[in-house]
């Protein structure tokens, strides 16, 4: 099945190259290994992450698109739905089977109908609207809920750092 995974990834790469969503770039780090991608995501407008460019790694399983890829930000980012080590925690990255707690409906989870583009767009909307109900980074969720000013300040520093300024 690795052959069809490659073909599908190639098609998605082509699509993302010729017609990327605004503020998103993605592609394989090195075409020797098509299962390891790099993505750049611009912080969405009118949010505290505005102006930042956040790099992330996507790792695809060999049975893609049957199983979802994993996504991890390679820069520092303080956000309720991103673990301290950069791993992204959103429902679209979870296969319908592996949610023992059952607080995500299967409709919003991974299925072969989804794509890299949809994942990245979900991440953009996650950046603009953090979900503090299922927090991956408890500190960030707490700051977001109780101390919005402080959260925005940290985000501003993150944005500046991400641009290398």
């Amino acid at each position, binding site marked *: 099945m690795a052959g*069809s995974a490659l073909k599908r990834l190639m098609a998605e*790469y082509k*699509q993302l190259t010729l017609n990327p969503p605004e*503020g998103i770039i993605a592609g*394989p780090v090195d075409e020797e290994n098509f299962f390891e991608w790099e993505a750049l995501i611009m912080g969405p407008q009118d949010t505290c992450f505005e*102006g*930042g460019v956040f790099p992330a790694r996507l790792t695809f399983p060999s049975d893609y698109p049957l199983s979802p890829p994993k996504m991890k930000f390679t820069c520092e980012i303080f956000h309720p739905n991103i673990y301290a080590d950069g791993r992204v925690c959103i429902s679209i990255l979870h296969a319908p089977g592996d949610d023992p707690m059952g607080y995500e409906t299967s409709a919003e989870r991974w299925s072969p*109908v989804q794509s890299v583009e949809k994942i990245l767009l979900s991440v*953009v*909307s996650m950046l603009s609207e953090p979900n503090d109900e299922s927090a991956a980074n408890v500190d960030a969720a707490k700051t977001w809920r109780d101390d919005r000013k402080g959260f925005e300040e940290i985000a501003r520093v993150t944005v500046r750092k991400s641009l290398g300024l």
Partner: protein
Amino acid sequence: MTQIFNSGARKDIKHIINFERLTSYGLIAPLVLYLPFGLALALIRCFIFLHACLLFFLLPNGFFLKRGILRVMLTVIGLPIATQGEPRVNDKKRIVISNHITNLDPFILTLLHPHVLAIEFPSLLHLKNMPSKRIEIPSDKDYSEAIKILKEKLNGCAEPVLFFPEKVKTNGTGCLKFSHLPFELDLPIQPVTIQAKRFLFNVNISTFSSSIFEDFLWCLILPLTLFSVKYLPVTEKKKDETHEEFASRVQVNMAKSLSLQALSYTYTDISQYIKERERAKVKTSSSEKQVKDISEKNQRSELLDASEFQKMVLQVKDVLPDTPVAYIESELRKTCDVDTTITNILERKSETSSETAENTGLSLRSLSEGQSFKACKFGTTAKARQLSFAERKQAMLEAARLKYRIKHGL
């Protein structure tokens, strides 16, 4: 963990997991002869088991004969249990770890001494409907967080916690590498080994995918299944030892007491092997299909077997779910091959999909910045594509920096 095996290693994995209930065809004839007797026996034993269940709930937990009576009843229904050694009972807070050979293990160990069963997701899902007390360890949480949650829960329960650190059933001929989770809780470890033996009929007690009801039914039908449980001395972590070293020390000890080999495969290796095995099965069936297809093509392809054809359509649909079935069918009729069909559809799609994609993503797209960094063409060589990718990344970063500088007056 992506370990690359040579074919020898794969063979080993094949030998420590049972896939089939019956080991040889020679067993079938005596089994069929035995079956009428076996079924009658199972029926009687079923009633005795109901009584045992009743007793289990009726007798108070402190009653000293309770476990003895239940063990005698289990012997009658064909599940004698032999024990060796005594668990240390004086200190309450400890963790019991055991090797895992059948679905009945937690049931038997809990019967001997009350335990709380710890279930590590996702591998031990088959134990989820065990009628015992249990703690579930969520897999979607961070590792350190899981340990924290577990420690909290441990404080709340009086009984020792039972772990199956191999995380998967083996057939009892090898000891898999342990998961480190139970060893990181800083509690003394009580290793327990469990072995099972069947008399007269050498039918496997449990298979990789069997359920507890299936296993139990076989136990009722067949004459005797002897479980021997051995309690090993309680082990504690040495001061200068890491968690991994501790885990492997306990593993080696348990393997030695079972006179087995301590293996270096983990649960991940096993599940990978299982996946590969399933894939290989699909492949052989599809290659058989291809041979068939070619011969059928010679006598006009409309004779293609309808169900086989549907299967191929489904295979394509799995990879490209948003393609209409009618389109897949027409493409498949032309090529009669799953892979070529996928390639053809993808190539045609990338020309037309640009407009459709724009419609679907529009609402979300307006969230991000008003800039899009698209390439004017998709290069034909890997080098050209990578160059364009690097250029676009640089352009995005530069644009963002410029914007930031203007906004903040730097």
